[in-house]
């Protein structure tokens, strides 16, 4: 990888694709290096883009200042790197810590950012994230970098992925340990501990913005991305199904597809930053890349929508302690399923009920091959005449 001297700092970068093309820039997360973008870089450059990756200060093969790094330093460094490489404008993507840097760049240097893709990131620190940050900080200062690696892995990727790479995992961890100097990661973490929320400044971001969030990202949960969606003017939120925090690593093909489609859309002047919420396809090759989310996208469970009338058989009624037993109530027949009014996507693979007569209904327009919704057709058994769960009376 080539490197460039910016002031006193050495910056390791990789630039792929011919001059004159649209430039897409990727910014790493906390313990990453730019080598983790290789698949994305190759994929996007094959599709006609010029792709820049680099190690931020404190990471990988770039300089690792001992005296600390300010958040502004990261934004300024990227600007100087773009200057040095004679890149006037770019489409900027950043994950996690890199997402924070990307948003800072978009706020501070809006003229340099054509579009923005913040992924698995945040603009303020909810209590859980703050406490996680403190925990990671304690781990690195008191137990060392391997503990951080071990703690982050299950937050970053799924069990499936871990299973797939189980044999090569120790070597990947070793390389991660070598690439990263613990004191430098500590420096980056300290910028989290002293993090200044900037949600109130997000309205300064005017460029088209596609916010990406893994369905099961519990390191930077949905609420973090909801803040971005609500405050960034020309934004949309897209949820990546089944994905955890580091979905770019686990689903590189889908990530490339989404980013390419977004950039193409922006360049064609067709972007609609209407703050809507979308769910990406589970299939990177699906013609329907994403569908509008239905229901409450902030929830992790399905909550009945007002128009979804359920029968008594769908309810588990239990009398309260000391109260009269719940009597069977009038049975309302379940409604016959009706086709959804508009294409819907659900954030889990399938929803099944326990009733044997359940019938799968394929939606007219599906987000992907496995996105299905199952709706009860008709209850098979009559609801119970007596209380479903009779508890003994007190006294």
């Amino acid at each position, binding site marked *: 990888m080539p490197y460039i001297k910016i002031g006193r700092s050495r910056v390791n970068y990789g630039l792929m694709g011919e001059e004159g093309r649209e430039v897409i820039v990727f910014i790493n997360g906390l313990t990453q290096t730019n080598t983790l973008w290789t698949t994305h870089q190759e994929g996007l450059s094959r599709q006609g883009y010029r792709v820049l990756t680099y190690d931020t200060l404190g990471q990988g093969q770039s300089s690792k*200042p*001992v*005296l600390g790094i300010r958040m502004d330093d990261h934004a300024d460094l990227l600007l100087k790197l773009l200057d040095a490489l004679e890149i006037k404008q770019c489409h900027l993507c950043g994950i996690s810590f890199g997402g924070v840097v990307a948003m800072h760049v978009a706020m501070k240097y809006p003229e340099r950012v054509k579009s923005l893709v913040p992924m698995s990131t945040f603009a303020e620190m909810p209590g859980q994230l703050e406490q996680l940050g403190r925990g990671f900080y304690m781990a690195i*200062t008191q137990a060392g970098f391997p503990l951080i690696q071990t703690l982050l892995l299950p937050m970053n990727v799924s069990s499936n992925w871990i299973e797939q790479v189980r044999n090569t995992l120790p070597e990947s961890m070793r390389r991660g*340990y070598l690439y990263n100097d613990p004191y430098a990661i500590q420096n980056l973490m300290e910028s989290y501990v002293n993090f200044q929320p900037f949600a109130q400044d997000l309205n300064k971001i005017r460029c088209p913005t596609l916010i990406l969030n893994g369905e099961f990202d519990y390191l930077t949960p949905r609420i973090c991305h909801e803040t971005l969606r609500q405050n960034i003017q020309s934004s949309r939120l897209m949820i990546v199904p089944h994905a955890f925090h580091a979905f770019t690593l686990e689903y590189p093909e889908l990530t490339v597809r989404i980013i390419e489609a977004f950039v193409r859309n922006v360049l064609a002047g067709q972007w609609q930053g209407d703050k809507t919420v979308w769910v990406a396809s589970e299939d990177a090759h699906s013609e329907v890349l994403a569908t509008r989310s239905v229901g409450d996208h902030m929830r992790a469970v399905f909550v009945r929508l007002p128009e979804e009338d359920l029968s008594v058989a769908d309810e588990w009624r239990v009398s309260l302690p000391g109260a009269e037993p719940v009597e069977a109530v009038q049975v309302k027949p379940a409604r016959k399923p009706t086709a959804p009014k508009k294409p819907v996507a659900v954030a889990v693979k399938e929803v099944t009920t326990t009733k044997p007569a359940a019938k799968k209904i394929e939606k007219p327009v599906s987000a992907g091959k496995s996105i299905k919704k199952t709706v009860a057709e008709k209850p098979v058994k009559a609801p119970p005449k007596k209380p479903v769960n009779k508890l003994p009376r007190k006294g």
Partner: protein
Amino acid sequence: MPLELYDVARDTLRRTGLTPVAQSKISLMITTAKNINALFLGAVEFLPFVGPEQQLLHAQYFQEMESILLLSKVTRWTQDPRVYMESMPILAPIWKEWRLRYSMPGVSAIDPKGFYQGLALGHALLSKIRIVPVIPPEIDLADPYALALRRIEQDNGRMIQSQITLLRTTAPSMLEEERDSLIEEKQELVNDTFNKFLQWLAKS
């Protein structure tokens, strides 16, 4: 930092195991680093300008002595004198650095800038000398020597907190650029030494 050097050294150890020659080479590198830091810490821990952080340095001094003792005890030292001879030119640059700054005419010569340089050298020694990635995964986790190396490296991560704090808070009269420059200089020195050591270890 060339990762290939680590890989080549590990491949050698994978082939030979942790022989007395390999152990002696590693222990010479680590005990030299620990001795140099301990000599600095021992020289400055009672200086009045150190301030309340004196406690940190005092604790680190004894921790370093403990690491030296631990490693010296668990190492199967080779009887081949060539190993000790070969180590000299490799380790000389960091010994020289210590001698230049702190050995003569003694503690009285250590001014705040000298103190800062000693901290920077300690930081570089604790952060840049990382042996654990060289140990092959096939080595028994309970092997006393490998265990000692892991423990020492983990302790380094804790001890370096004193250097990190003091490098940020002491010598306020020095410009940040000057401080950066001193730190960088020490890191390069230790990096070069350690890279040469890895090449030497690969020849075990």
